[in-house]
């Protein structure tokens, strides 16, 4: 009983994000002319999964107390790589996918190596490397284009057994195969420890360097998965700075809405997924209520403010002002 209470208390952020998403999505479906049909769900899922993956990628550096401004650019870069390599015979496609994912992981590793061994601040490091990755994307794809294996793209963007959107299955697979094992590994817990109190983690014998490197590398890999998915959705590659920038900023918003602390140490990728879903559902809501899409940034901003305020609501309960600063 006490266990359950503690666990619920410690996952308040995630639970709240899930609840808000369910409410918003129900509202959306209730007002959608077609209701909850498979195509409606699939379209919603495909858009949402992209941001969810990038938000997961953002979560890892944030947990260690850092911030990754390059996730959006890795996303774009891997999209451009995929638009050149993921086509041809099945063998070539498979190799292409592996290269795309490795590219993402390598980009993340470079971020991590600079942060860990160069002792530079994550924000500045990733601001710089992000520009580099965007530059690489531009060199690969000066103009939008390229191609991707259409059969595979169809599979990935439609449904499994004509019921469940494949992209959701992919997201679930990423959670089960990458996130959950990572969270329960020694290195994963090291990331939480580092984000919570780096000095204490060091004194406890936590391998700080390895934890941070793993966080950034995995972050790059997840951004790579997102880049691959983007290619399947758009059938092409485009080195678009606005898209990269938007995804980076939205990923930070999704992480916060999902209950992960920007100070590090608390939260997780599941929350970020629902944070991303919430942000995405805002567009859909605007659509079904016939509001012009121009309102979207305004609403996103309001939701973000509300989310942050909810996190700060504890301020009103605090009667010892010193605790405000902890």
């Amino acid at each position, binding site marked *: 009983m006490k266990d359950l209470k503690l666990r619920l208390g410690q996952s308040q952020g995630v639970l709240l994000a899930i609840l808000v998403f369910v409410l918003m999505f129900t509202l959306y479906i209730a007002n959608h002319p077609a209701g909850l049909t498979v195509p409606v769900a699939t379209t919603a899922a495909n858009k949402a999964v992209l941001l969810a993956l990038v938000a997961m990628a953002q979560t890892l550096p944030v947990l260690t107390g850092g911030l990754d401004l390059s996730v959006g650019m890795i996303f774009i870069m891997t999209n451009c790589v995929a638009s050149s390599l993921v086509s041809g015979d099945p063998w070539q496609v498979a190799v292409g996918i592996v290269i795309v994912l490795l590219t993402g992981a390598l980009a993340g590793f470079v971020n991590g190596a600079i942060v860990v061994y160069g002792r530079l601040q994550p924000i500045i490091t990733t601001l710089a490397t992000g520009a580099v990755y965007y530059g690489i994307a531009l060199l690969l794809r000066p103009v939008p284009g390229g191609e991707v294996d259409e059969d595979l793209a169809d599979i990935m963007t439609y449904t499994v057994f004509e019921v469940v959107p494949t992209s959701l299955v992919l997201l679930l697979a990423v959670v089960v195969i990458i996130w959950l*094992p990572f969270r329960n590994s020694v290195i994963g817990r090291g990331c939480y420890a580092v984000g919570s109190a780096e000095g204490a983690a060091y004194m406890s014998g936590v391998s700080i360097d390895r934890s941070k490197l793993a966080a950034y590398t995995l972050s790059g890999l997840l951004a790579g998965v997102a880049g691959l998915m983007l290619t399947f959705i758009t059938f092409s590659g485009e080195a678009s700075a606005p898209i990269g920038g938007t995804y980076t900023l939205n990923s930070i918003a999704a992480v916060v809405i999902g209950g992960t602390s920007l100070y590090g140490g608390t939260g997780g990728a599941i929350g970020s997924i629902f944070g991303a879903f919430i942000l995405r559902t805002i567009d859909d809501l605007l659509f079904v209520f016939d509001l012009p899409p121009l309102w979207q940034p305004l609403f996103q901003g309001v939701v973000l403010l509300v989310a942050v305020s909810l996190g700060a609501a504890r301020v009103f309960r605090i009667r010892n*002002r010193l605790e405000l600063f902890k």
Partner: protein
Amino acid sequence: MTDPQASSRNAVHPGSAFWRMQGIGKRYGGVVALEDVDFACAPGAIHAILGENGAGKSTLIKIAAGVVQPSAGKLVLDGAEVTFATPQAANSQGTVCIFQELSLMPDLSVADNICMAEPPCRWGLIDHREQRRRAEALLSRVGCEDVHPLELVKNLPLSRRQMVEIAKALGRNPRMLILDEATSALTAADVEKVYEILRDLRRQGMAILYISHRMHEIEELADTCSVFRNGRHIETFAKGARSDNEIVQLMIGREYTQIYPAKPVRETRPVPELEVSKLSWSNRLSEISLSVGKGEIVGLGGLDGQGQRELLLALFGVLRGVSGEVKIDGNKVRLSSPRFAKSDEIGVALIPEDRKSEGLLLPMSVRDNISMASIGRFTRGIFIDRQRQNAEIDEMARRLSIKVGDIDDPVATLSGGNQQKVVIAKWLMTDARIVLLNDPTRGIDVGTKQEIYQLLRDLADAGTAILLYTTDYDELIGCCDRVSIMYDGRIVRELTGDAINEENIVASALNLTLDGQAETAKPAGEPL
């Protein structure tokens, strides 16, 4: 080559030392922290390390624990030379250290923290069930069955955290356990429990290095004592071979006179500067009434965590929703914020509990720290009058004899005792009429303590009203004109004059009434 002096120093357990330091030296830039230290430690013994702050104790244990590397000399374990590049390396050789600064991660659960270094794993992943079982076993070993293993460390009070820290260290199965002021934040009951555990570990053959500034702890626990001074190992002797006075002399290297300044004899009670009546807050403070006169030092006693800290915070305007009445110099005031509390019309200063987070801005210079609370006094238009300010800062640093290479050095580079002096200097700069102190001598060496006692008495003699919370009974007895003992958010007893003795303090802290005590120790709230 054997150093005859070293062998005589370690004469207490000849030949049985499994761990020794030979010719260890450590320099930080030009500063010598340790010089040519020979030191040895035997299994099955509690070895106390004594010395003022800056004597080299912390450096010694940091070297032993692999946190810093010695610049000279070697570490010998079981007859073989070893080097500890990281704390991990030291841990793997069985050396585990419990540091003064807690090594817990606040956002993680108690179980996660306890099993941080070597978690039980299954198929490469952390086995949460086994981890929890281990945490529960260790928690019950240190008598903390009330701490839930899934609770986040940040939700625990300081004293429980310290016990979790000890449980965590025991979980590493050390051969040598180092405790650096490990009992400073504990409640009396926990301290007893820790003593019991340490004695038990000694029986099992563990070597224990024990650093504490509390003499009675050392008397109670230690088998062997080593005194350090100015980075040198002065002497090692068996417990009882030296008297307290001799030990203190060895530590400070000068004649040990009376440690507390004389209390003034008063015929009448002084004019009250601070009067509190029926102050309540949340469920932590209830109906507190107390007064502090001009020139008086009033002590707050009792077990740790009975509301003393909250009372001081309330009087400094930190708490919201405080009920009751506070009068300063006869005028009713509502203390709404520290900024208001420190203002000229109120004149309250608080020396906080944790100098590192609440007292100082560690990366900023000594000068900036000292001027932080009084900066408003040195303005010319919108600018700071540096010249006038610097003159006063230098004067204050001299008055408190703060030992600092350059006053523009970051305050983080100072020793604990000097850092605390900077905190006090900062508040003296505000010319406060009422000074509140929250355990100001915690983790500070004897010499600095003595200076602080004298300073407090000087302030009081100059008319300042002082309210001092301390966890050290000796200070209540030695420093205070009156003592109010708190229990469960209330003041349960007020002691004056000869009634301020250890027996009364301990009994009142436990909310007991001893026979024959009623005449000297009056219940709180009654006029004298």
